[in-house]
């Protein structure tokens, strides 16, 4: 495995936390990014260290250019070689009622944040002739969901961003993919209509670990010929 570290944004809970644990289990030193939940991030770091892995928590808002620059700095662990863009938020509302701030904030964190981290991660990956980038999108980026125009646009954006960057850098051993989770038990899906599970062929919501396992594969050396694709993880919801 090349020398470097894995950065997971928004890793203090949910899919991000599960992904940090998964990448550590696969042998990567992990930079566990958080914006507000320092305690959550430290718990994940402690869990990784207890399992014999290496990790540290790093605060940073992906909506801030300056924070992203610091977040992607090389450390004692070497350069960033795995980047998982997971930081995200939703501010739902029917389109006629979405104000500019709700629109802009979601786009800025979910889409612009992913672009900023990718832009900063690519130079060291190009030098290393190795890199794994995974954007955590959503099935909402592939199909409609009323009340989430901003979120859906941001997630469709990160899917397209991943595909485009994938073809730009494929010849340097860097892969760029997305995962599109369906309904997963996380804080982001709290408060959503429980009857939605009835519409899922698997008849249950997913677990963060089930998404993290897919991200772990896409970030692995074995997945070296998988790039520019989107892996849906949704219990068959969009099948």
């Amino acid at each position: 495995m090349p020398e470097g570290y894995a950065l997971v944004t928004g890793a203090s809970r949910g899919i991000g936390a599960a992904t940090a644990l998964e990448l550590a289990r696969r042998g990567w030193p992990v930079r566990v990014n958080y914006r507000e939940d320092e305690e959550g991030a430290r718990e994940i770091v402690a869990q990784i260290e207890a399992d014999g892995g290496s990790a540290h928590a790093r605060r940073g808002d992906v909506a801030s250019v300056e924070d992203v620059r610091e977040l992607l700095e090389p450390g004692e662990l070497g350069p960033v070689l795995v980047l998982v863009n997971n930081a995200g938020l939703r501010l739902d509302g029917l389109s006629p009622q979405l104000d500019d701030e709700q629109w802009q904030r979601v786009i800025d964190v979910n889409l612009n944040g992913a672009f900023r981290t990718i832009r900063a991660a690519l130079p060291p990956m190009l030098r290393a002739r190795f890199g794994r980038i995974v954007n955590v999108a959503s099935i909402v980026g592939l199909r409609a969901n009323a009340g989430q125009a901003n979120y859906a646009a941001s997630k469709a954006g990160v899917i397209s961003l991943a595909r485009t960057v994938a073809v730009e850098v494929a010849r340097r051993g860097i892969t760029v993919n997305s995962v599109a989770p369906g309904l997963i038990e996380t804080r982001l899906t709290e408060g959503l209509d429980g009857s939605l599970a009835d519409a899922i062929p698997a008849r249950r919501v997913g677990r963060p670990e089930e998404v993290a396992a897919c991200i772990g594969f896409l970030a692995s050396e074995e997945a070296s010929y998988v790039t520019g694709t989107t892996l849906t993880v949704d219990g068959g919801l969009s099948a």
Partner: protein
Amino acid sequence: MATKVSEEQVEQQIFDGLVELGTERAVLSREATLESIDVDSLDLVELAQIVEDEFGVELRGDDVKDVRTVGEVIELVVAKAE
């Protein structure tokens, strides 16, 4: 922050950078076209990073899009460093 640099320094750095990117030193000259020595657009991105690290000169995509030869890269960096 750009610092004053000599053309010889830049040439040395660009040549070293191109060798690091896989170009044979024997085929390097200021007259060599980037195409003839197999320097592609991603190589230029990496070269730009090396130049920025070394001289503090930022080369954007627009700056290098019309550059054809190694000498033109060197001249561009020197001009931007001034």
